């Protein structure tokens, strides 16, 4: 399992990486943790002439609170997310989600930025980012732009990231006090992508859902925001009827691909079940918060 030949570049700063990306053009790919790209290169699904390794750029790592946001460097690993005290306190949804990604070795290498930029609907961060209403900082030769997660994912392996741009930072608003969140993921085994998974962030007031966001993993060509389900739940109490209706509306937007994990009907049903469970758990956590 050897990749096609390529030249390797290890810039030490974001400007250097952008310069390389501009110079080398379409023949270059960015290397983050390498646990999606290198397997694809081994299978020769990808054969870039140049790899630009972002792994030596210190400024791309780290988790910090800035005002009411958590700023996460794009090269921060899943392992670092799982073990972050700041995230455990402020955005536990991200800790829960990252802990369900792949296995320990992959979490030591895999990065949040790589997971998001890859544009694979089977990756977990896209739905987590939608549920959390995150924003992404995209840096290029012309400067920086900040885009919302909602709208960033365009299709299979396709995002708003332009050639010549690097996703450098993820910005997650700290959820309001009293929020509850949950990520429920069904997978066949450790290391597999989700058969279905749902991320929920919820605020509860007086026993009723005041605000909720629901996002689905691996239910279509991109992570999906289940807006109709969100609207149907808002103002309602959580009970069997409201959960079933939300699950039904989430299932209605699913267009899963049949594969070894199951046929489309099964995956749609599991998406409904994960949605039901995530809503239930998020509600219980909000009640305790």
């Amino acid at each position: 399992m050897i990749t096609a030949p390529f030249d390797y570049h290890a810039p030490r700063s974001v400007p250097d990486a952008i310069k390389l990306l501009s110079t080398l053009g379409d023949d270059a790919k960015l290397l983050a943790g390498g646990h999606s790209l290198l397997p694809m290169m081994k299978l020769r699904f990808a054969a870039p002439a140049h790899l630009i390794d972002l792994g030596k750029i210190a400024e791309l790592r780290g988790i910090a609170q800035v005002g009411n946001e958590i700023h996460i460097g794009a090269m921060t690993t899943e392992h670092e997310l799982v073990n972050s005290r700041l995230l455990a306190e402020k955005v536990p949804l991200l800790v829960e989600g990252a802990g369900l990604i792949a296995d320990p070795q992959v979490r030591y290498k895999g990065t949040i930025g790589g997971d998001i930029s890859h544009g694979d609907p089977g990756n977990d961060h896209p739905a987590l980012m939608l549920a959390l209403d995150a924003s992404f900082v995209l840096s290029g030769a012309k400067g920086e732009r900040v885009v919302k997660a909602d709208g960033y994912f365009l299709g299979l392996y396709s995002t708003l990231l332009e050639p010549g741009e690097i996703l450098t930072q993820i910005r997650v608003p700290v959820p309001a006090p009293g929020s509850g969140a949950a990520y429920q993921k069904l997978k066949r085994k450790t290391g597999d992508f989700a058969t279905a998974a749902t991320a929920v962030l919820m605020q509860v007031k007086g026993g009723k859902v005041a605000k909720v966001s629901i996002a689905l993993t691996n239910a279509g060509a991109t992570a999906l925001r289940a807006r109709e389900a969100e609207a149907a739940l808002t103002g309602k109490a959580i009970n069997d009827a409201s959960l079933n209706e939300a699950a039904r509306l989430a299932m209605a937007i699913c267009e899963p691909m049949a594969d070894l994990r199951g046929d489309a009907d099964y995956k749609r049903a599991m998406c409904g079940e994960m949605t039901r469970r995530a809503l239930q758990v998020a509600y219980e956590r909000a009640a305790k918060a």
Partner: protein
Amino acid sequence: MAKTQTVSFKLNGKDVATTVEPRELLIHTLREKLMHTGPHIGCETSHCGACTVDLDGKSVKSCTVLTVQCDGADMLTVEGLEQGGTLHAVQQAFHEAHGLQCGFCTPGMMTRAYRLLKENPNPTEQEIRYAIAGNLCRCTGYQNIVKAVQSAAKKLAAVPA
């Protein structure tokens, strides 16, 4: 052919340098150039964990790391666990608790257990199982592997390394 590069790193405490094509995987460098055949090639698709090595304090699957990424790194393979002819507590525990059957996954399993116990010296059974989820035992000998890791934790607690 792409340009070759010289890469230097510390391997089990010794400085090594090797010249590689950028596409060379760490597992191939370790086994074929540096003659460290402890780390095994199981699946070569980052699923099985037989190729696990410790890279700058992290367990990684060396089939999914490029050697060129390791310049300046500090690396430990199963060969580096033993010190001065004395088995590491993890190795002793695997021996005593019969934490292996065919032995194919053992180097990766022990290297992973080594890092786990550095990070969490007193793991619960559930934590051990979660921590070795990236290492597959084709004999399905997980019960004794978990017991071996528990035993290693006790040994390390008795005599701090």
